[in-house]
């Protein structure tokens, strides 16, 4: 059985170290920039078609490229309830509630984004 110690070389260690550093710094930066969201913006093919308040519970239907997507706003968070795409990745992305978080459905060209009070471009993210 190969020992990891014998496989790894100096370049690997430098690469892994640098990459880890970049990952930690970017996660921390995004974490500290995160705040609770106020609004939900829904985009199809890059155009904003809806802007809802996160405080009001609703359920809406969006016509995308493939068909109808049902989106639910409940208790300050947003989920995709029903999607027409084959993989349902957007459904699996779950709930989002904080400023800067997004749900994306690539086949449907749909992006749902939460924005804060000031609607700044640098908000933050989680999955």
């Amino acid at each position, binding site marked *: 059985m190969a020992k990891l110690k014998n496989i790894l070389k100096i370049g690997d260690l430098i690469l892994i170290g640098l990459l880890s550093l970049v*990952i930690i710094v970017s996660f921390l930066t995004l974490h500290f920039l995160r705040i609770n969201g106020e609004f939900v913006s829904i985009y199809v093919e890059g155009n904003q078609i809806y802007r809802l308040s996160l405080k009001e519970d609703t359920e809406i239907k969006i016509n995308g490229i493939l068909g109808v997507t049902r989106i639910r706003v409940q208790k300050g968070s947003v989920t995709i309830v029903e999607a027409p795409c084959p993989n349902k990745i957007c459904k699996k*992305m779950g709930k989002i509630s904080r400023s800067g978080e997004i749900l994306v459905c*690539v086949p449907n060209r749909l*992006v749902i984004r939460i924005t804060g009070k000031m609607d700044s471009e640098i908000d933050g993210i989680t*999955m």
Partner: protein
Amino acid sequence: MSYRYIQMAFLVAVASILFTLESLIPSPIPWIRLGLANVVTLLALKWWGMKEALIILIMRVILGSLLSGKFLSPVFLIAISGGIASTLVMGMGLRLGERILSLIGISIMGAVAKNVIQILVTYFIYIRQIHILYLLPIFLFSSLITGSLIGFFAHLVQERISLPLSH
């Protein structure tokens, strides 16, 4: 020469099977896959070179997408551009020399290149929303994990099999 083509065709088959098998396993995290077929790309780069590895990769992505019914779909274009980018970067990594980098480091470089290119292609072609770039840290983290695993597997395989076989 023709013997090499037979071996390349064999690797295309192996890669397509790995790719298809993996797509049958549901991923716990959306958008993130292990990329087992990249073991084949790494080995092809090591045994032959950039040209052969690219041919195998492109044929594998076409075959794999036909098998999963995604040929020429957005997913296909994202997969092929990421695959080409990672093959080119890994090829350059191998040229840097194996005294500095093992297959693990080379595979991590490939995984990072693949994820960066895929997110850029998604951004420029499908979703022109700067916010999807926020997903990058998560993709970088997954590159580190999947890249290391794939590199380790490739190392184990090339210790046991030495292609190109002479006959």
